[in-house]
Structures are given as structure tokens and as C-alpha cells.
């Protein structure tokens, strides 16, 4: 009766333009093709225009002397464009790392001050935060720059502690702690030490769990590293053989034929899409065999397969230069490493140099031996540090306030001591809230160092601008900027994610 009715259903496939799945994927593929087409068109247009105005878009300038002087950095008179940009990158990274370090300290202090039960501290913290975060960073940097520029002129007996610490309109100069000859071999020793220390820490923890006695795992691991480090200070030259390993690696890489690498890359691309499709099919598998695949699933698989094939064609025919580039840079990398780790570098790993003032021509200036911070550096540094610290302070405050009151009550109800409760209950939860925005701020700080261009500090953007003004190669320089900053942001987000995941595990 009633059950006989269902058998009479006759299926009909809807017309393509009304089929949900077809429409959905056609729209998406069309959008993708349009985007690629637009990008391709713009690129072609730019290429034509550049050729018409006789500005080739190659990267030759990286190995040509740009003829520029940099205001500060590891090499103020670089002999190639690539070297100049490298100096800029190092300057940016130096600024970013130092800035992140100092801004975090100041930010945490100010954030805690804003939560203090002392009225005055609270108000001072508020004034700090509100003033700094409501004034544009560039205005602050220019202001600091203008102030530093009005300091006293540099002279041979410049103070405040001549020979150790110099402050003048040329900036700040102080003793430099630098990497010396034996550093890389020493780092191998330290690496071994870290490994051993981790082993020791785990054993100690196991011991503590077993016996219940306090075994100070962190402290003893730390002590072991110090001991091994001191030991390594004297014995590190024996690791000179590592250089030879890198050397032979370098020759192995250079021996790879380009064609082989191309084929490998193409195969890799196809294999990757195949692997994805297999994984996808497996994820749809039920205990009773393959689950029914929807049209959507078929589209996904077709898309992945097409992607793999397109990638293979791309590697094989459209961009054959990639493989030779990979081989060359691989060879270079291992050569540099073999140099750094090579034999005959038996000096101290770390050394100290005192600042000096030299007079070349008419005016005295800081010599190269000390750690010199130009006015530009100081202006950008103070700018980004204070600006970021204001935001970090707000994050810290918000993070601590976000821990529900019940948590501390529960901890005290369990009889935990104040310090234990803070360490085990409040801080882990606050950190979980604080970490993602904190990572964002670190990223912002790194990007904000690019404002150095306004006060002439040689960061990557400023150097890049100088380079393209000299050579006219704007597009390559911009692409290097993008690549550099994207790698920075990727690294920071990877680090933040790593801690984030760990925090989550701690929480569970």
C-alpha cells in the first residue's frame, strides 16, 4: 500500500545550470580562472611597459656593485646589491628581535602597573598607554629622531664614560659582544649540551615522580649546560671535521643533474595530489566499505588531480630554471656552512670590543669597533618599543582580567599556596588568552620597523629603496621585500602556534 508508492519514483538529473553542486564548482573555478587571468594580464602589462621603458626585471643587480653607502649595519659599504639587501635584512631583524625583547618587558611591567592596587601606579600606567597608542608611530619616531639630532656634537672626549659609553648626535656607542672565530664549533658543543640536559631533566623528573623527593630538574639541567658550555670553550676546535661533512654535501648537491630534479619535482607534485586523493578517499571510508561519495567529493578530487598535473607541467616545461636555482643555492648553502664550521677556526667563540672615536678628515666620528646605534636606530627603536609596549600592556591586563574569579577561589579552596596558584592556575589561563594577540603585536613590531625609512636607518625597506633608485629594478626589490616580510610573519606565527598548541595541552 503505502510502501508501494515509493517504488514509482523516477529519477531525473536536473539541468546543469540548476544543479547545486555544478553551479557551486563552476562559479568557483570561474572565479579562480578570472583571478589568475587578471594577475597574468597585469604581470604581462607590467612586463611590456618595463620592456618598453628599457627596465629589465631581472635580479642581476644582486651581484653587481650598487655603489651605495649604508648608515649602519654589519657592512656599511656593501660590494653587491645582494649584500646590501642582506645588511638591510640583518638590521631589520636585529631591530625586531631587540624590540620584541624590550617591548615585552616594558609592556608586562606597565600592564601589571595598571592592575596594581596603588592608585598612582595605575594612573601612570594609564597615561603611558593612552598617550602612546593614540599617537601614530611615525610621529613618535620623527619626534625622537628630532630630539636625538639636537644632542651635542661628537668629539674625541665624548661622554658620558669615554672609551666605554658614548652618546652624541651621532648616536650611541658601547662595547660590542660579537661572534668570533670558533663560534660555530662551540654551538655544536652547546647543542650536545642541550640534548644531554634535556635527557637529564627527564630522568630527574622521573626520579621525582618515583620517590616524591624534590630533584630540581630544571636547575640541574641548566647547570649541566653551563658546565658543558665552559668545557666546550676550550675543546671546541676538535669539531672542525664537521666542515668537511658540509663540504662533501655541497659537492653531492652540485652533482645532481637538473633534468633529474625537474622530473623529481614533477613527480612530487603528482604524487602529492595522488596522496591527498587517497587520504580523502580513506577519510570517506566506512567500516562497511567506501561511503557514498557526493558530487562535491568528485569535484574535489578532480580539482586536486588537475592541480597535481598542472604543477607537474609547470615544473617540467614552464619554469625549468627553478631546478638549477635550487641546485645552485643548495650548493652555496653547504659551501658557506662548510666554511663556517671548517678547520682552523680555533679562536674564542665570543669576543668583546670596546668602542672608539676616530678622526678621518675634519670631523671625529665613531669608529667601527664598538656597538654603534645610529640616531636612526635609536629613534626607530624607542618608537617601536614604546608603541608596542603600550599595546602589550593592554593585552597583559586584559589577559589577567579574563581569568574568572572562580578559578582563584577554587585554587585557594584546594589549599594551594599563593605562588603555586599563580603559577599553576592563573598564569597558564591568562597566557592562553594573551598569546595570540601578543604574537600579532610581535608581527606588527616587525612590520613597523619599516618606518625606519623616515629617519634614514638602513632597514630592508630603506636599503631596497636606495637600491631601486640606483638601478631602477623596482619590481624585483618589492618582491624581495614581500618575500622577506612574509617569511618573518610566517616564522612568528609558527612559533606562536607552537606555544598555543602546548598551552592547549596544558589546559586539558
Amino acid at each position, binding site marked *: 500500500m503505502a510502501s508501494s508508492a515509493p517504488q514509482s519514483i523516477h529519477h531525473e538529473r536536473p539541468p546543469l545550470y540548476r544543479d547545486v553542486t555544478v553551479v*557551486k564548482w563552476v562559479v*568557483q*573555478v570561474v*572565479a*579562480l580562472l578570472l*583571478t589568475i587571468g587578471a594577475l597574468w594580464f597585469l604581470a604581462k*602589462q*607590467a612586463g611590456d*611597459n618595463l620592456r618598453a621603458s628599457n627596465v629589465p626585471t631581472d635580479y642581476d643587480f644582486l651581484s653587481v656593485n650598487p655603489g651605495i653607502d649604508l648608515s649602519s649595519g654589519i657592512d656599511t659599504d656593501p660590494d653587491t646589491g645582494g649584500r646590501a639587501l642582506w645588511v638591510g635584512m640583518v638590521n631589520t631583524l636585529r631591530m625586531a628581535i631587540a624590540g620584541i625583547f624590550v617591548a615585552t618587558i616594558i609592556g608586562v611591567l606597565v600592564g601589571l602597573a*595598571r*592592575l*596594581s*592596587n*596603588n*592608585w*598612582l*601606579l*595605575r594612573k*601612570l600606567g594609564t597615561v603611558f598607554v*593612552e*598617550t602612546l597608542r*593614540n*599617537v*601614530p*608611530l*611615525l*610621529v*613618535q619616531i*620623527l*619626534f625622537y629622531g*628630532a630630539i636625538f639630532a639636537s644632542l651635542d656634537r661628537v668629539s674625541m672626549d665624548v661622554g658620558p664614560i669615554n672609551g666605554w659609553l658614548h652618546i652624541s648626535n651621532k648616536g650611541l656607542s658601547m662595547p660590542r659582544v660579537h661572534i668570533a672565530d670558533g663560534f660555530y664549533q662551540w654551538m655544536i658543543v652547546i647543542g650536545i649540551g642541550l640534548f644531554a640536559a634535556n635527557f637529564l631533566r627527564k630522568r630527574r623528573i622521573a626520579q621525582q615522580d618515583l620517590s616524591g623527593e624534590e630533584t630540581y630538574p630544571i636547575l640541574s639541567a641548566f647547570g649541566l649546560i653551563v658546565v658543558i658550555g665552559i668545557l666546550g670553550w676550550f675543546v671546541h676546535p676538535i669539531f672542525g671535521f664537521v666542515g668537511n661533512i658540509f663540504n662533501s654535501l655541497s659537492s653531492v648537491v652540485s652533482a645532481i643533474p637538473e633534468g633529474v630534479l625537474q622530473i623529481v619535482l614533477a613527480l612530487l607534485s603528482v604524487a602529492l595530489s595522488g596522496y591527498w586523493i587517497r587520504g580523502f578517499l580513506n577519510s570517506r571510508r566506512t567500516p562497511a566499505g567506501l561511503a557514498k561519495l557526493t558530487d562535491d567529493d568528485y569535484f*574535489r578530487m578532480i580539482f586536486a588531480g588537475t592541480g597535481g598535473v598542472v604543477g607537474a607541467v609547470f615544473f617540467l616545461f614552464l619554469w625549468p630554471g627553478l631546478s638549477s636555482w635550487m641546485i645552485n643555492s643548495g650548493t652555496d648553502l653547504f659551501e658557506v656552512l662548510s666554511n663556517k664550521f671548517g678547520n682552523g677556526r680555533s679562536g674564542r667563540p665570543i669576543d668583546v670590543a670596546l668602542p672608539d672615536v676616530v678622526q678621518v678628515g675634519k670631523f671625529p666620528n665613531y669608529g667601527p669597533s664598538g656597538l654603534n646605534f645610529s640616531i636612526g636606530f635609536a629613534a626607530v627603536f624607542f618608537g617601536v618599543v614604546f608603541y608596542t609596549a603600550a599595546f602589550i600592556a593592554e593585552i597583559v591586563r586584559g589577559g589577567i582580567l579574563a581569568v574568572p*574569579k572562580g578559578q*582563584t*577561589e577554587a*585554587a*585557594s579552596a584546594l*589549599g*594551594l*599556596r*599563593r605562588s603555586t*596558584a*599563580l603559577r599553576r592556575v592563573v598564569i597558564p589561563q591568562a597566557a592562553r588568552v594573551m598569546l595570540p594577540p601578543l604574537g600579532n603585536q610581535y608581527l606588527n613590531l616587525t*612590520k*613597523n620597523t*619599516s*618606518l625606519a*625609512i*623616515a629617519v634614514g636607518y638602513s632597514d630592508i*625597506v630603506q636599503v631596497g629603496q636606495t637600491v631601486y633608485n640606483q638601478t631602477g629594478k*623596482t*619590481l624585483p626589490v*618589492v618582491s624581495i*621585500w*614581500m618575500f622577506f*616580510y*612574509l617569511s*618573518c*610573519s*610566517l616564522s612568528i606565527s609558527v612559533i606562536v602556534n607552537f606555544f598555543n598548541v602546548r598551552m592547549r595541552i596544558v589546559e586539558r
Partner: protein
Amino acid sequence: MQDANQLSGDLEFQRGIGQQGSSPHEVPSLPVGQWLRKNLFSNWGNSLLTLLGSFLALLALRGVLNFVFSENREWDAVRTNLRALMTLSYPESQYIRVWVSLGFVAGLAGLSAGLWANWGGVSVKRLSTWLMGSGGLLAVCVIVREPSVILGSDGKVVRTVDGSPQRESFLDAMVDRSSWWIAAAVLLALGTLLWGRFTSPDRRGVEVSVTSVVFVSLGLALLSLWVAPYGHYAFISETKSYVAESGRTVAFSTKLPWTVMLALLCGFFYLGRILRRSDYAGIIKGASNLLWLISPLTLFWVVLRDPALDYGHVMSTDLPMGLAFGFLGGAVLWSLTRPGVGEAGRLVATMLLGFAIFNWVAAFFGWYPMLQKARISFLLLAIAALLAPNFIGEIAKRRQLVLSWLGVTALVHYLATMINTPSTVELQSSEFLGGLGLTLFVALIVVLLSFPLGVLLALGRTSKFPIFRMLSTSYIEVIRGVPLISVLIFFSVMVPLFLPDGMELAELAAVLTGYTLFSAAYLAENVRGGLQSITKGQYEAADAIGLTAAQRTGFIVLPQALTVSIPQLVGQVISTFKETSLLAIIGLFDFLRVANSVIPAQSEFLGVKREGILLVAMIYFFFNFTISKYSQRLERRVGLGER
């Protein structure tokens, strides 16, 4: 156990502070002695912190005061160049246009505030603590500032043997500053008087409205313009050089217009208050919102530019074209909303869209000429036709669509005509606005343009279509990974390269494009936060009652998501405004550039940078602080309303 109690007590106290800090009515209700003991000297550590803190604070205050009032400061540089800082080289003879624009905005702001604002009140007691606080602070400032230098009979600073300037004795300095003492005493006395009268329990809750506090303070500031002679120079410019001329004060030339501004603000505020209660409140609110949307463009391109209309051309081309688009387009839309138009409507709309897009492609390749206005109009018509199915049905709805079309057409054609007409204002620089005007304009345009783009990107990133998600995500992440300055440089240098032959883009337009694309990525992330807060049930309910995806997004998802993300959006507006300062680096003359490069290059003020930058910082601070405080207040009120 004792420890544990102490801990919970401590944290409880912390929490109390957090809440106090965020509450608008934080009033110390303890006697002064007890309050001090509780908040500053509760234990040894705390007392030490207080002493250290006050020492540091006094030191910092002294530093700032000495810096600002130092005999080395050349505030004349700022006073003389105020006009350049505000509008760069806008001709003085045409300044009335600036004032008219400003007056329009002031009136509109007053009207909107009157129509919408519900700021509540602030208790007199709190006001009295503010007065006492500022009086005390003023007194401290007078004391800690170092004594002034002594001017000799020749008007130069008297110097001691080692060359440092000789200063008055402390007592002399205090006597010299007697007017400041009086001011501090008046503030303190006023505060104490109010405090004394309004602490009794029955009068504790007495409040004055925030608006009257704001208006009275603005009025006092205006009064000071009338009585105090700010500045001794007026700025004039001759043929590209900046010259200072003594004789007239800035106060003299601006006190009258400022009075008018304040009058407009107050007048329209109270008008808004009255209209709010009238039957037409809804219509007037809508009209004021519409004015906010279109007035910046109109003021910028029509009032400030003063286009010289060529009436022959207007009559022969512009007017007929506008009428044709308005009425023919209206007719098309009217027929497209006929009940029972069915699939044909969609077909026509799609064809129109194809044609409109084809026009732009053709423009790109230069296949056939067409007025830009016509291309824009066709695109708008196509969009309206796509929306038309939503308006099928009763006459009133169809009329609504057609009338909106007529309005939009009229506005677009009017603006386009005006923009394409040459300006009569004679300018020395290429851009006709500079200084603060340029900064505000760029910030406004970027916020307005990046909003729709950012919302689209956010929708793409949260879409269930994987390719859209991939495209939006990679766009957002790439843009967010690189600094704004590199994007701006890229656009100002590279955009000309991407354009085909014969197509040009002004540098300002290129920069605006780049900044908008940049800002949209950040805005998208803020909107995404809001979108993620919408529960799955909302989507399902919208699907279940048969809404289409577009209707679901427009009626259900976006309104809720945008409301949730208001605080983040305000933050985004603030940072967009702050980052407008980067225009100075890429060669546009915003007011930071004027302070940092133009003024120090004038022969009278060679190298004078710090004063100008300080003023710029103060202006930025004023705007941002006001916006963020207002948004916090708004947030709290919305939050309270929900509970």
C-alpha cells in the same frame, strides 16, 4: 590556609580595580585620609612604590614642561604655519570655502548628536574631583617647571661665565607665575565648593548632562580665543616660498568663524533634540545618515574645488545623459519588477552585467571611447537590475527601487560632472588639498571604500566554497604579512606600470587604491570575528524559511556580525587614521610632512621640527582619544542594554 585567604583577597582586590577602572562612575567615597591610606600607603611596599612613582612622575612632568616652555622652543614656527598645517597652500582669499565645509560638518554633527546621542550625565561630585585634580596638577606644574631665563636689556638671554643661561631664583619664578597660581586656586576653590555642596547623601546623585559639560568647555575655549592674543604672525605664501609676516594674530583671523562653528554645533544639536520627538524622526535620521555619506564627497569635490561649470556642455551632454540614464534605467527597472517577470528578469540583468563589465574591459584596452560616467552608470544599472527580483510585487516597493535609482543617478552624475570640471581655485601645489585636510580626506575615503571590500573578503574567508576561501585567505594573509609602507611604495611607483597605454592614475588615487586594499584585509579580519560569532542555527533558520543565500547574508548574518564587531571596527578606523601619517613618507603633503619637512625648510625656521611634530602628535591624540573613549562608552551602553 592563611596564605590562600590572602591570595584570594588580593585577587579580589585586583578584580575590583579592573571593574572600577572600567566603570564610568568611579568616585572615591572615602574620606581623603582613608582613601590615601587605602590606595597609596596600604603597606610598606606600596608606600615605597608611591614615593618612587611620584618621583618619576614629577621628573617626567618637569622634563615635559621644561621642553615645552624652554627658551629654545620656537613656537612661532607653528603659529605662523598653522594655515599650512591645516590646508597647505589653499588660497587665503578662498578660505571661506573651508569654513563653509567645516560649518556644514559641524551642523551635521550637532544634528546627528541631537537625534541619536544619549550620553547621560556626569555627577557633579565627579566633576568637582576633576576640577580639584586639574587645579592641583596645574599647581604642581607651576612648581616643578624650572625658573625662566633672564632676558637682558638687549632682549637676549643673559649667560653665566660657562655659557649656560642664567635663571631667576626660585622665589622670583613663583612670583612671576602668579597668574597661574590664581588659575590653579580658582579651579581648586571651585572644585572644593562643589564637592562640599554635593557630598550630602541626598544631593550625591545630582548630575549634569555630558553635552552641557562639552558645550561649556568648548565655549570657554572659544572665549579664550576672544580674550587672549594667540600668535603674532599670519601665514602668507608667495609663489612657492613661505614667508612669515608679523602684525596679525591667528586668534584675530579665526575667532569669528569658530564662534559660528560652535553656534552651528549647539544650534543644530538642540534642533535635533526637538526633531527627535517629532513624528518625522525616522525620516530625519535617515536623511542625516545619507548626508553623512554624501557630504564629504560633495564638500571635497564641489565646495572646496569650486568647479567652473561650462553650461553649454552641461546642457548639451551632461544633463541629457543624466536624464536618459535616470528615466530609461528607471523604466527598465520598473519593468523588471513586474510580477511574473520570471526568468526573463534574471536574463536581462545578467546581460546588462555582461555589457557593463565589457565596457570596462574595453576601456582597459582602449577599443572604443565612452564617457567614464556612462560606464559607471551601466555598472550601477546592472547591479540594480540584479537586485530587482527582491522588489517584485506591490507598487510601493517598485516605486521605492525606481526612486532610489533616480536619486543615485542624479548624485553620481552631479558629482562626476563636477569632478571633471576644472577647478577655479588657484593652487601652488598639484593636489588641491594638503595638511590636515588631506589626512582627514584620505582616512575618510579609505574607511568608506575598504568597508565593502573588507566585508566581501570576510564573507569569502568564512564561505563554505573552498576556492573562495583559499583566495580570500591568501589575499588577507599576504597583505597582513607585509608592512603598509611597502604596499604604498608599490602602488605609488608600480601602478603606472600595470596600466595599459593611455590610461593614467593620479598619484593620490594610486595611493588611495593601495591603502584601501591594505585596510580591507585588516577590516576583513575584524568582520570575520563577528561572522564567526553567528551560530549555525541562524543560518539554518534562514534557510528553513526559504531565504536565498544573498538574503540570508544581508538580512540575518551581516547585521548581527557587524554589530558584534563594532569595537574592533572602531579600532580599525583609529589605526587607519593613524597610519595616514605614512603618506608623508611617500611624498604627499599631509600635515606631518608640513611639520617635518616644509617648516624646517623655511628660512626663518631652519631645522625647527620638534614643535610642529608635537602639535601634530597632539592633534592625532585628540582625535583618536576622543573616538576611542566614545566607542568605549557606546560599548558599555550597548552592553548594559543587552542585560
